């Protein structure tokens, strides 16, 4: 089957006799590496708002995310592979989220669950709302919905699995030589408003121009 071609360990174009299929596989290092990772994505136990409730529901008996190896919620970022941003990201909360992200070891993935985490959603106009976590963190999968149903969440997780499948151990950023913490995000500052220090110069320039106008 074309769509499931990554799921098994075996390479699809090798015909292994049926009686030894249980004990012999012909595969590549990449496939072995990704096969192990795709079935054990451990999410960070981290809920922000309404979406977190659907995230819990997806873990319960009816939907059972454990089928995908994703039931092991880790309360500490040091043991987590994936951050599921489940809910509205507020300015006050953002420094904590970024600190958690920086504490996660590579390989790490970010999934933006729901409208708020993807773009600010219905609360985008709010003065305390960050219009999407992708302004600060690199997002791998966006899941639409407000909140996404557990089925939608599982579909999003399967997309993440597909993404993992396509990575190669030779090229992934966390094994590149000489690069330390290539995904480190500097902490934003809670000043008169939220300040993204990566954009400090731009922001200062805009603040001056406003006076001249």
């Amino acid at each position: 089957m074309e769509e499931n071609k990554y799921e098994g360990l075996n390479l699809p174009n090798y015909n292994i006799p049926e009686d030894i299929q249980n004990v012999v596989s012909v595969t590549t290092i990449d496939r072995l590496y990704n096969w192990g990772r795709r079935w054990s994505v451990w999410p960070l136990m981290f809920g922000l708002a309404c979406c977190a409730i659907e995230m819990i529901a997806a873990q319960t008996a009816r939907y059972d995310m454990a089928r995908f190896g994703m039931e092991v919620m880790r309360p500490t970022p040091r043991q987590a592979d994936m951050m599921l941003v489940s809910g509205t990201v507020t300015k006050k909360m953002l420094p904590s989220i970024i600190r958690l992200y920086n504490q996660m070891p590579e390989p790490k993935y970010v999934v933006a669950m729901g409208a708020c985490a993807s773009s600010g959603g219905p609360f985008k106009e709010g003065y305390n709302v960050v219009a999407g976590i992708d302004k600060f963190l690199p997002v791998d999968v966006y899941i639409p919905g407000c909140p996404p149903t557990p089925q939608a969440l599982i579909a999003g997780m399967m997309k993440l699995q597909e993404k993992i499948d396509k990575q190669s151990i030779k090229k992934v950023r966390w094994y590149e030589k000489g690069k330390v913490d290539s995904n480190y995000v500097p902490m934003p500052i809670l000043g008169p408003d939220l300040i993204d220090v990566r954009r400090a110069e731009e922001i200062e320039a805009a603040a001056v121009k406003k006076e001249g106008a």
Partner: protein
Amino acid sequence: MTAPASTTTIDLVSRFPEFVTADTRPGFSGFIVKKENLVEVATALRDEFNFDLLSSVTGVDYIADNKMEVVYHLHRTTGGPGIVFKTQVDRVDPMEVPSLIDVWAGADFQEREAWDLLGIKFTGHPDLRRILLWEGYEGHPLRKDYQEAFFEEETKPFKSRWPEGHHTYAEFKNPFRDNIKLPENFKLDNYQPENEDQLYFSLEKSSMKHTSENQMGTDHMVVNMGPHHPSTHGVLRVAVELNGETITSLKPVMGYLHRNHDKIGERNTYLQIMPFTDRLDYFNSMANNFGYAVTVEKLMNIPVAERAEYIRVIMAELSRIQNHLIFIGMLINDLGSMYTPSLYAFEERELILDIFEAVSGARMMCNYFRFGGVVRDIPADAMQKIKDLVHDRLPAKTDEMERFLNENEVLVGRLKGVHVLNAEEAIRNSVTGPVLRAAGVPYDLRRADPYSVYDRFDFDVAVRYNGDMYDNYLIRFDEIRQSLRILEQALKQIPEGPINSQKPQYQVRVPAGEAYGRVESPKGELAFYVVSNGKPNPYRYHVRAPSFVNLTAVETMCKGTKIADFVALLAMLDIVMGEVDR
């Protein structure tokens, strides 16, 4: 049971002729008190007129009259209608109003919120810090002259969206290309962000005090729990001062999910707010819809279709059942029985959510109520599902859960006699809902001040008397049983007929005035304060969230108890951060 007291008019004006006047603005009610005598009047209302429960404190910015108004809503825990009084102050900083924290301790967080969002300074408040935003934030967002970074127009629908439809990204209009707003000539180099000293200073400084003589002298330790913590039920943060394992002082820090509900509400039209209320207490969107619909109907003075009233009650009670089931699952989860009882609870919840999905189209965010009724009728098969659930499945499952859990040794050992809240302390702190009833006060709005058709049903107000966590746990089962009783009667009595007394409409006409509508949500008294000036958008829209106000009592409940029990206490208060922070 507390029968609703007959409407008595309280003549505050003749009691205090010098400094109390009646509020005579059209559509408004209550009294206006001179701010110099506020504490005196409040004390009299509490002691002479027996208004022991401070329901809500909020502010309204009347920018055209150059006045800032503080609005207080009082009620009696014996039932009956409440009273509203206001005080006005010139709209010139500092807008100082005396704090009522000494009269009702429940004013604490609500006054801090009014300071944070409206900039009203409550003199005499011992800990007047920002509560939802952070120290150092520029401006008070609920003032009418405050414009957020993505400000487009005063009210919706924005002209760019409708009827023209030339909308663009909000980022393109903002000079910073982002949702931020900074003072002119802001320079990051010489900016020193405010640190959190004020929070830690507010913890009672018993630090250097050493314990009794025969114990080893130990230093106290400040621990921050949250905002990311597996058992804080969302993004609540708590700063705790510990002596060993014992809590000596504690301050909740919130606002990590402050989504500007009030400000967005004031920009929205009346109907546009309805889906936003879903996201307050995201377990019980039906209950939130109910509260908001009741309030605006009060303001519009329209009847509700008979069938819709019953549908509303059915939905609200189903919502209460699933909320309490989750509560029980999560409480036991926090006590260490990782996940098994929750899985049982979620199984039942899914069945109730199926019904919500069948009637409204969404599992959690139902957006189901409309002014004058509901948006759709219950489909026949969903009706049959409700009947099966109410008559067969839910009573059996409740029995099963009680049989497995109630006598459990660990559960009884962890809950019995821990975190006792007595009735007096609960009322003083404006605690409502199951937590208040577990402390022995039979105060349930469905009886105390009946709304909708609750006066037609035969049910008991669940009440327990010890006020400890075990009673709080048991009372949830009592309430599930009473809800099932109400549901049985409602399913029997529900008439045929239209589901809305009004024509479907996008824009409702709301006459000028104010309304304070309240319902018994599963967490407590959920109330909305809406001021209309006759325009299509509310002039002031405020949510009195039960979770938020119930948190006021946390500090008194926790002193002298162990930190491990605090985790259970948070579960027991049944807070939802969407409602705490709004």
